[in-house]
């Protein structure tokens, strides 16, 4: 900006000096005044000549990329939150079912990578009677669609 203003001022001073050599009422003075006016206009709009319209596209691309990164961060956070809620809810349902059968257990549900995530494996910790185990196995299989081989029972 400083360079531009200095450039503008120096052009104005030069044209003024040039004009002072001629008589104000002469035709040459009028002609030179017109030329100096054109020179001043060119000096004033010269930064526009260097304006590169393509840079605008690059800026928008940069901002789009930044926005995309913020969106991905947000989606990752939401997915993490959703997985946490689903896991907690599934475990709560399993504990509730075990409690209704008179058993006290701990359940650790693992979710798959689908969207939305679904339970695919469960680890049950606690000693239960064969009847309760059978009932819970059936419950996990029918309600959660977790096959028997994905149900891990630990004492």
């Amino acid at each position, binding site marked *: *900006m400083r360079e531009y*203003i200095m450039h503008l001022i120096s052009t104005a001073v030069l044209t003024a000096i040039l004009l002072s050599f001629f008589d104000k009422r002469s035709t040459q003075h009028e002609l030179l005044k017109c030329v100096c006016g054109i020179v001043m206009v060119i000096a004033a709009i010269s930064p526009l000549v260097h304006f590169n319209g393509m840079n605008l596209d690059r*800026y*928008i691309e940069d*901002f*789009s990329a*930044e*926005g*995309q*990164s*913020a*969106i*991905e*961060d*947000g*989606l990752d*956070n*939401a997915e*993490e*939150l*959703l997985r*946490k*809620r*689903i896991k907690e*809810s*599934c475990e*709560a*349902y399993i504990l*509730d079912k075990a409690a*209704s059968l008179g058993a006290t257990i701990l359940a650790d549900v693992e979710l798959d990578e689908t*969207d*939305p995530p*679904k*339970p695919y494996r469960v680890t049950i910790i606690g000693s239960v009677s064969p009847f309760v185990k059978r009932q819970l196995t059936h419950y996990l299989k029918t*309600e*959660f*669609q977790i096959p028997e081989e994905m149900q891990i029972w630990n004492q």
Partner: protein
Amino acid sequence: MRRFIVLLLLFTIAVPVNAAEFTAPEAPGSVAEYVPDQVDNFGEDLWFVINSALKIIWPSIIEAMGFCVSLIAVTMILSVCTQLSAMTSDILRYSGGIVTAVILIQPSKAMIHLGIQTVQQLSQYGKLLIPVMTGAMAAQGGVTKAGALYTATAFFDALLSGAITDLLIPLVYVFLCISIVSRVFSQTLMKQIGDFTKWVITWGLKTVLYIFTGYISITGVVSGSADLAALKATKLAITGAVPLVGGILSDASESVLVSIGIMKASVGVYGVLVIVALWLIPFLQIGVHYLLLKVTSGLCQLFDIKETSLLVKDFADAAGLVLAMTGAVCLMLLISIICFMKGVG
């Protein structure tokens, strides 16, 4: 028991379990003490910010009143001298104009510097806040709208703050220089160039704001419909699952959406308060400067020294232009945050 689980889930919504995920960037040091850490009541908190700002600006009011009194005194002396010695009225006029300019230059320079600083602080805070709001909106399902809003806000913020720092503020200096020359030496052509410079600045600010609001209004509607369609598709996929699992997925999705909405609203409200605090103190300082110069200009007219009065008026106009610049950046950020807070659809 199912009711108990639902209640438990509702409780987890009321207390955002993952509040750390979407948190507003902390208020910069200069305004940290005026913005409450937790936003409980927006009205009360905003009033607290305004009250704090009003207390802070007292010294600048007194300072501004000081140089306004000096200006009135100079004009009064000039008026008396002009009455006493009509022969030297031209020299008196020139010297009066120069003295007035000298008195006004230092505070005006400080005011313009304050304006630049405010624009930069607002822009920097916006750069921290907008990505958080974008992430929260995307997490709520507004992926397309969040992307469009982010790009528009970041682009126009960079454009406006860059234009203010590199073009409009130098133009304000040009306007002041031209004003001094035109008022002291009564140059009509210079006055017209000065008016044109002022028009370029106001026109530039207005145009950027109009394009920005127009763009986000249109993209908001278009991208909002796309996001609603995507959300409906996700809901359909959930209802296709096993009843119990489908119910859990549906409840969890709903609760996640609600809790993200709560987080986004609190981040947005906090952000609005910080932006208002960042803008309000300099706005009041420059605003007081502007109003006092306007009053001084009016009072100077009473002494029949037209040049001085008009020069003071031009400096007041320059303060008005700086006010408009800080206001434009603040308004743009507020519009953007409110659009983010509005949500999907």
